[in-house]
């Protein structure tokens, strides 16, 4: 009998490990070309932007998510004054390196802005099962967008037209090495089409705190920074194709500013010498190595210890 129980436990352990219970199942790389086509299902999220869901979300975010988030990472927010220059709805366009990005941006926003902000999330990732879809829509106010084309219950344009701010990651997916990838045209197109301003957002440290493949932040309350930049508006007659590089350049400047100072970043921007956010063309391990270093606070921003040692 003891052998039977031991065998059963061993089987369950093997299954739990092998099929990643509680986590997203993975397809072996060599089988990706032979994977079953994912069935796109239209998941309605209108309910998550209604009053009852908003009330629940407020409680969950304020009483649960915020303390949990602050217990795991040490956030530092700059540039919120930029929001005084715009009126909602706006598009928050940010680089994307980690699942921490969304809570970092949302919890950094002033409450009034946060309550009226929705997040565009990949339908094939966050809306592939009902419980994941309900969870992310309720907690983060996500709605599904199809990365590879397909039908949707609500388009980002509809959500903007309802007066909601949107968080958009134009890279389409999380960076594999922490550096910024190419920006797709979706955010620029939305801004041009719906005549809404874009607030560039740059954050650092989320890759170091919880990179792709990690289910929980690394211990030690790693520092993460987020910086909001001056709003951008498409110029008269400017196409999405022309506008998109300006958005990426604004995020690059913000990242540079976060690494150095506003003045130095401005000088480099004026000289056209802003470091490429795509990172240096060096060996992959060096790219990852550079990004796994937590951001150092700027000299003037170092917090004073209440109690000197």
């Amino acid at each position, binding site marked *: 009998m003891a052998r039977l129980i031991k065998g*059963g436990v061993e089987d369950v352990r093997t299954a739990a490990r092998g099929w990643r219970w509680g986590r997203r199942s993975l397809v072996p790389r060599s089988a990706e070309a032979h994977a*079953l086509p994912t069935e796109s299902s239209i998941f309605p999220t209108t309910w998550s932007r209604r009053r009852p869901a908003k009330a629940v979300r407020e409680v969950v975010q304020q009483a649960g998510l915020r303390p949990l988030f602050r217990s795991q990472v040490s956030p530092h927010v700059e540039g919120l004054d930029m929001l005084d220059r715009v009126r909602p709805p706006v598009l928050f366009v940010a680089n994307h390196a980690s699942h921490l990005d969304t809570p970092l941006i949302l919890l950094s926003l002033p409450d009034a802005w946060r309550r009226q902000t929705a997040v565009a999330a990949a339908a094939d990732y966050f809306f592939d099962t009902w419980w994941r879809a309900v969870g992310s829509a309720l907690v983060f106010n996500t709605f599904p967008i199809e990365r590879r084309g397909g039908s949707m219950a609500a388009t980002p344009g509809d959500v903007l037209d309802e007066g909601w701010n949107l968080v958009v990651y134009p890279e389409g997916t999380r960076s594999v090495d922490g550096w910024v990838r190419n920006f797709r045209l979706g955010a620029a197109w939305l801004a041009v089409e719906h005549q809404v301003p874009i607030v560039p957002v740059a954050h650092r440290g989320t890759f170091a705190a919880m990179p792709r493949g990690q289910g929980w932040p690394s211990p030690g309350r790693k520092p993460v920074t987020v910086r909001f930049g001056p709003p951008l508006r498409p110029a008269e007659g400017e196409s999405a194709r022309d506008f998109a590089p300006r958005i990426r350049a604004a995020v690059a400047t913000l990242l540079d500013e976060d690494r150095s100072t506003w003045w130095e970043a401005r000088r480099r921007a004026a000289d056209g010498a802003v470091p490429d956010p795509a990172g240096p063309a060096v060996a992959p391990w060096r790219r990852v190595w550079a990004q796994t270093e937590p951001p150092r606070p700027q000299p003037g921003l170092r917090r004073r210890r209440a109690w000197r040692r």
Partner: protein
Amino acid sequence: MSRPGFVLEVDDRTPPLVVHEGEGFRLEGFPLGTQVVYPPESLPGLPDVEEAIQDALLNPEGSEPLPALLRPGMRLTIAFDDLSIPLPPMRKPDIRQRVIEAVLTMAADAGVDDVQLVAANALHRRMTDAELKEIVGERVFRSFHPQGLLYNHDAEDHDNLLHVGMTEQDEDVEINRRAAESDLLIYVNVNLVAMDGGHKSVPIGLASYKSLRHHHNSKTMVRSHSFMDPEKSHLHHSAWRMGRLLAEHLKVFTIETTMNNDVFPSPYDFLLKREWEWGIRDQASMLAVRRGLAVAPSKLRHKMFHDLRAPYGVTGVHAGETEAVHAKTLANVHRQQMVEVQGQSDVLVLGVPYLGPYNVNSVMNPILATCMGLGYYFNSYRGQPVVRRGGAVILYHPVKPDFNQLHHPSYVDFYEEVLAESTDPAVIEAKHEENYATDPWYVHLYRTSHAYHGVHPFYMWYWAAHAMDHVDEVVWVGGDRRAVSRMGFRAASTLSDALEMVTGTVGSSPSLTYLHNPPHLIADVR
């Protein structure tokens, strides 16, 4: 839409993979980089099988329509494959029943009175009445069996064998007299693997030992690369010579059918899916089946597996002239089973399941396990073997020295006496085969009981001769040490141990290929 087969390379995302081992299976974590060959997914079955049968009989390949071949007063014999295929046995109605019923309907309409049905079991055991009935169906059984017109072929009934002639290579062609003297012989086949069918049906299924010995020998099997590839199989070359000779004396109308890969019914259907695509239900089924097998007494476990009936879909029915029909049949089999594999590996890994052609409703003894692993599975290739010459084969099976005394009496003596002396197929063939083939007691049991012919264990050993000649090392994971050692192999407890044991042959970081079957696959090795 069925997805084609492919070769998986095990990486850090790959879950444990199913490996069959007798009446059970294990979940094995293969080393990173192991190539795993997955068969194509099951092809859709024909939507209307009856219509396909009618179409095949009325529009045959290279022959007049069947009704045109039937006339009153003729002698009509219908031969059909025995219970050794398909594996597992088919869920009712068996395709042979459906075809035979269609043929008999046409024969009745044509006014044919003299009809006999013969199970083409060659030197296999006689099937029981219940087994015959399961294949041909109640209607056919009731109409023919009580009158003695539905029976098993008897390869030792010399009065009812006819020596038809000699091939150009001096091979005796001796088959069932009734079949040979019929005006029309209709052969109904189930072509499960590429080895089956064509001229292998009549000249082998209805033959005697005198005829079979020309191709069922160690020399032929070592030279057949492989016997799953009729073009390169000396076994098939011989059978084709015999078939062509027979065709000069006898009108044969061949009906061949092919099945898809639906070999496991629910709740075992998770075994047909690719492991990383297992949903919660599949994982739960796997755990439940594993626990069920662990607690079940061996008899119940045996019953759980041997009661399985596969929900096969029929992928093709072709009828007419044997070679023209078989070309179409082979194309169907390849469509369902062929997978392209690039290059050979140092080590071939195979899981031997609970069932082979010769232990339906019986026990897979060590010799049959060897035949299944080193015979059928090793030879499931086209082009070149999956493992390089001088490589190693690792098999999974308990290899318990359990024998069914009713079905396999000569196997016991073969295991105890012959293998104790030598395991070299050529040596045992020269020294012992004749004695076993002509032993009156084995002949008696074959004819009157349900025993495989006395020579049958030799053939099973020859089946593995090509593999034994090709590789340097054979290790059985989970195998009974005494039984494995008796057969000249080695046993290991785990895959790691087995890999450690073969380092002397293939080094410490060999390339591995695992053939993920059942269901059946043919590795087209380039």
